[in-house]
């Protein structure tokens, strides 16, 4: 490709730009259309989550975790409560475990739908985005049915849940899954296997596995690079060891392993796997059980610390909790997967054109709330 060189120019993509997925600024040096250097500038959404936590009780932290990754709040709750339960040594009832898995996987689907839909927007396809939002709305309906909130749930509590499942939830969920599965193929035909889309994403922004590990990239991004790494399989928490599902990894089907298309494809396949998990969980869901049974009267952690990771839709979500034995945590550190994913951007996006940078950024599926915390 012959490139006519122009002036070196500095572009500020963001903080207000249609495709920065939040309030992110990309300091981009361009040479003509080609990006020679790129530096993400973050912090616009910094809300001192960790400082807040030091002033809150353990229960009050949960709504704050909601707001970190607001696309997948359930999973953020999940990570925190799993960490706290291990810290406190609480065994939660079976029913609670199943409900949690169902919610987390539903939310994973919802999150991936957003990731894929907005990625379509990034490369210029508007319609798939609305189709995917339509299905996401139905998942949010299910959440609303369960806990009254559509986005920030505060649903999972340490030792239990805020509410039991409503009557008719299981049927509604089955209905949703039955409707959703055929839609998946349609989305893929419409976008993923579209030649223009393939041209835009295949071989673009290749993230080799070594680089990904070096940068601590996890989740679908790492799996897109061909590394079979999923905490649900590799370090099963909760009851994930009871389900039968596969971990899709990128194979370089359309270009090379670890390109944008592979990341997209991994997310698309993960939705199908999540559907599989939800179906199994709904099947095995214990009919009886009090979701408040194991709730401690007052959460007061012993002295010490814990680091626990769970698999959020974006990757390894880790909580490092230190307790000095008082009623509030001494320190809560959240290791957010999007933070590491964004840090790799300057490594893989330099040398591509502006359009590709947008595509690469979109394929990393970042949520600024989680990066800036």
């Amino acid at each position, binding site marked *: 490709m*012959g490139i006519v060189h*122009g*002036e070196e*120019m500095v572009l500020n993509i963001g903080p207000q730009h249609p495709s920065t997925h939040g309030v992110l600024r990309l300091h981009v040096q361009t040479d003509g259309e080609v990006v020679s250097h790129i530096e993400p500038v973050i912090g616009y959404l910094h809300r001192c989550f960790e400082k807040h936590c030091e002033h809150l009780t353990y229960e009050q932290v949960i709504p704050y975790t909601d707001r970190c990754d607001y696309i997948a709040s359930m999973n953020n709750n999940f990570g925190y409560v799993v960490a706290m339960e291990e810290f406190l040594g609480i065994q939660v009832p079976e029913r609670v475990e199943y409900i949690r898995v169902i919610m987390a996987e539903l939310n994973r689907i919802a999150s991936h739908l957003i990731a894929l839909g907005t990625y379509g927007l990034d490369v210029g396809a508007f319609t798939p985005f609305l189709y995917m939002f339509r299905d996401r709305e139905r998942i949010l309906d299910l959440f609303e049915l369960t806990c009254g909130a559509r986005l920030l749930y505060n649903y999972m509590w340490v030792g239990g849940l805020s509410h039991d499942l409503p009557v008719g939830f299981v049927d509604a969920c089955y209905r949703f899954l039955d409707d959703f599965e055929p839609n998946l193929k349609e989305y893929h035909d419409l976008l993923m296997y579209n030649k223009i889309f393939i041209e835009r994403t295949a071989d673009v922004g290749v993230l080799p596995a070594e680089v990904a590990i070096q940068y601590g990239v996890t989740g679908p991004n790492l799996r897109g690079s061909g590394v079979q790494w999923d905490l649900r399989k590799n370090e099963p928490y909760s009851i994930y060891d009871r389900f039968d599902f596969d971990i899709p990894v990128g194979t370089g089907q359309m270009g090379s392993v670890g390109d944008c298309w592979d990341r997209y494809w991994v997310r698309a396949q993960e939705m199908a796997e999540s559907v599989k998990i939800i179906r199994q969980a709904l099947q095995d869901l214990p009919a009886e059980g009090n979701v408040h049974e194991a709730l401690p009267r007052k959460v007061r952690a012993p002295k010490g610390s814990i680091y626990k990771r769970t698999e959020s839709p974006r990757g390894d979500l880790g909580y490092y909790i230190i307790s000095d034995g008082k009623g509030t945590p001494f320190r809560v550190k959240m290791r957010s997967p999007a933070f590491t994913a964004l840090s790799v951007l300057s490594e893989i996006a330099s040398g591509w054109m502006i359009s590709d940078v947008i595509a690469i950024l979109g394929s990393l599926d970042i949520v600024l709330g989680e990066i800036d915390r």
Partner: protein
Amino acid sequence: MTEVSFLFILLLTVGSALGVVLSRNLIYSAVFLLFTLLGIAGLYVFLWADFLAGVQIAIYIGGILVLILFGIMLTHKIVSVNISHSSLQRGVGGLLTLALIAFLSWIALRTPWRMVSSQEPLQTVGRIGQELMTNFLLPFEVASVLLLGALIGAALLSRRDT
């Protein structure tokens, strides 16, 4: 009424040509050039050369002027609005130019041109095509080679690392 439009086009042509020459802003010069070229295309219509008028617009405006604008943008700080340029030897040059125009006009007006009255042709394109394929075949071929050469040359030249 044709007179009115003719006069308008004349004034447009000459006026904007003045603009091209006198404007201190390069982009403005280019915009004025746009109107000059448009005006000349209009004059071509009056001269029964409709095909040439089309060529004038397609090539001069759609091609050369776009090139010139690209050139201006590539050779100036890309986002600086004030692209001004200065001139030299305006006084002498102006006088000489005036003299030149005066002489040329005087010659044009004074010479008893041999005029042959003719009818407006029904179609010009066909005749030009026939001319090109018969009497002007060699220049036509040469022109195509020239264009090819210019194409390659321009591409080669504008690569930075040659």
